[in-house]
């Protein structure tokens, strides 16, 4: 299981849990599991999120590996100028 940290206002949609656990070995599995296990997160997942894995930020790379010891943090989808 991977522990995923949600930002505060997103946690409100997951029953107030800041840390949730899902079964995932990569980014794609993580997003699929979040959508399945926490349907209230779906609107935000559809709008897009960024995911920090061990301090590095990913937007789209489905096959980025995630291990049980990885620090995984969901973020608003980031954009730059």
């Amino acid at each position: 299981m991977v522990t995923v940290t949600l930002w505060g206002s997103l946690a409100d949609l997951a029953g107030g849990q800041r840390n949730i656990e899902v079964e995932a070995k990569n980014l794609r599995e993580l997003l699929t599991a979040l959508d399945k296990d926490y349907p209230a997160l779906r609107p935000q997942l559809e709008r897009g999120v960024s995911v920090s894995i061990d301090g590095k930020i990913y937007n789209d790379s489905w096959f980025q590996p995630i291990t049980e010891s990885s620090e995984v943090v969901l973020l608003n989808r980031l954009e730059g100028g």
Partner: protein
Amino acid sequence: MAKDEFTPRTFKVVGTRPPRPDGLDKVTGRARYGADMSAPGMLIGLCLRSPHAHARIKSIDTSAAEAMKGVKAVVTRADFTTTPEDQGTRDILDNVMAGEKALYDGHTVAAVAATSRSVARAALKAIKVEYEVLPHVVDVDEAMKPDAPVLHEGRQQESVPKGYSQNVLARSQYGHGDIEAGFKKADIIVERSFTTAATHQGYIEPHACLATMGNDGQGDLWCCTQGHYMVRNTCSAILGMDAGRLKVTASEIGGGFGGKTTVFLEPVALMLSKKAGKPVKMTMSRDEVLRASGPTASTSIDIKIGMTKEGKITAAQGEFRYQSGAFYAMNGALGAMCGFAPYDLENLQSVGWEVVTNRPKAAAYRAPGAPMAAFAVESVMDELAKELDMDPIELRLKNAAEEGTKSAYGPTYPAIGLKATLEAAKAHPHWSAPLGKNQGRGLACGFWFNFGGDTCVSLMINPDGTVSLSEGNPDIGGSRAAMTMMAAEELGIPYEHVRTVIADTATLGQNEVTDGSRVTFAVGLATIKAARHAIEIMKTRAAATWGIEPDAVEWVDGAAQPAGPNAGKFPPMTLKEIAAIASNTGGPIAGHHEVNAEGAGVSFGTHIADTEVDPETGAVKVVRYTVFQDAGKAVHPDYVEGQLQGGAVQGIGWALNEEYIYGKDGTLQNAGYLDYRIPVASDLPMIEPVILEIPNPGHPYGVRGVGETGIVPPLATLANAVSRAAGVRMTSLPMSPPKLLAAIKAS
């Protein structure tokens, strides 16, 4: 990008300062910008813009305009019959051509294409638009109130608590710990409210394009943009055409700074061309640029920080309310994530709000959302330093984030360079230089994420041994020079033997926009790997020529050579020699690399400014300014210094003079550079850039993006300098002379 890419090496080309490849074209006028292209039979397109801040469009009668001699096409929203799939693109369509309502002064409601500009102007006057003027709101705090005029119904996200106006589209909360418990531990608490005005990116070149839509459904578009692949994808979605049937070529670009990461004229020009059957050229006036292309958000921010008397933060809290213009933008959340990012905080609550108002849609402006947040947080940090009689750098070092710190936005930091910039500032002569009368010194830190993204590079070995490199990102900050240098470095050939061009959308695969400080990092990575790909092919050709195995060949100083005595004794075969016999050894040689270069490293900067305040007029003179920023590895230091200087200068304008001024009717009152005051050279001292080089482990040469972080600290740096010089805390930007004078008198 999971593994570290960086390998220490001694550079021969990277780190030097060769002449820029676009320099001669730009100083002689040969460079072709957005408005410099023309085509046979070309028409001139112009937009009709709403004179109202908020109005329902009851009817548009274009018949008189269409009947005029020389008018070849008129378009309104009725011509855009495709509904894009995603909300973001639907918002862009609503922004480039109003639907049921005009949402801001300058919102396009119709457009014409005619044989001349004068005919097009006359045609605009002949279009009759019947408006029902609606109440408007341009202030972020007013727009959040439950009784505020509403721009859009039903767009509020699930994160917004009940009781707010529907103009409040989203709320994002970040943080950790227990702020109440943290504030109880504090010996001193400072709580302040701040405002910042909307400012424009101020690029010199207005938006411009030339669109050609053929009867066969194929289109060509020449335009000034930060991302022609984005233009292709967005325009094709809006026009309901296959992306592959629209070829977009990026012109030279006279500045973007985030403001050219979306489309304004391009879909309109394509629709006019489709309807007229002729090429259509459109160019914005400066008035249109300011009224209708993206400024940054204006903000209203509350900050509360508690500290022990030793200067350690016990708790921090921020509310970041950002108005994003007439459509959703995610600036408030970015402000909430970035404002406190420089600090190691045990207890934090940081909330960002996205609010729509009757203003043009906010676009990115370098590190979008971050400078305003840094202004507020770093102002309170400065006030705390003053209250505690501590050196502002020492106070920040005491609280600075480092490797292992849980960041304000959640993740734990890997190795970062904030403390290095603070230590460099502390050691710099600027920090200890004496100040004169009415002068004050300010310091502030700033943070930005930096990105990577989809990137394609193709590298051709020409028969004469020169190299042609194609990248897909408009060259805003020197990417042609940087890519040329990295290719030359990797191949082991002179800089002058490589020429880099910006390819059109039909030539390379998808490339992300030139934004997020991504290009030198991501395109550089792809360039190095494309060069390595070509080297592998050249080693194979040399091995075949010598009759040995390819893995018995190594590449040294621009030549293939046997890897050791067992490989055989052959003289090195240079790139030029291998290129000359390419037809004999298997055909043309090229390398390429395609990647989604995610995992870019974050960036920090620290700025120092000295200002002198005229107590009789409130005028501020910037006396000295120094920037400290980590570049990972500065590929071409001139360009890196330019980015740091440019960010500081734009921040100085934002802090001191620039602001969108609206009348009571919600119309923009200062849509021109006479009244919208950007800094000019005579306003500025030499900005001294100090580049730190702490290698980014995610890039083969250690490169880190530098384009955005430079604009994050200046607002706060100037505010702290001016506040210390004037003896009064300035909490509202810009600190224009009348505002500063009033504050001095009130104190």
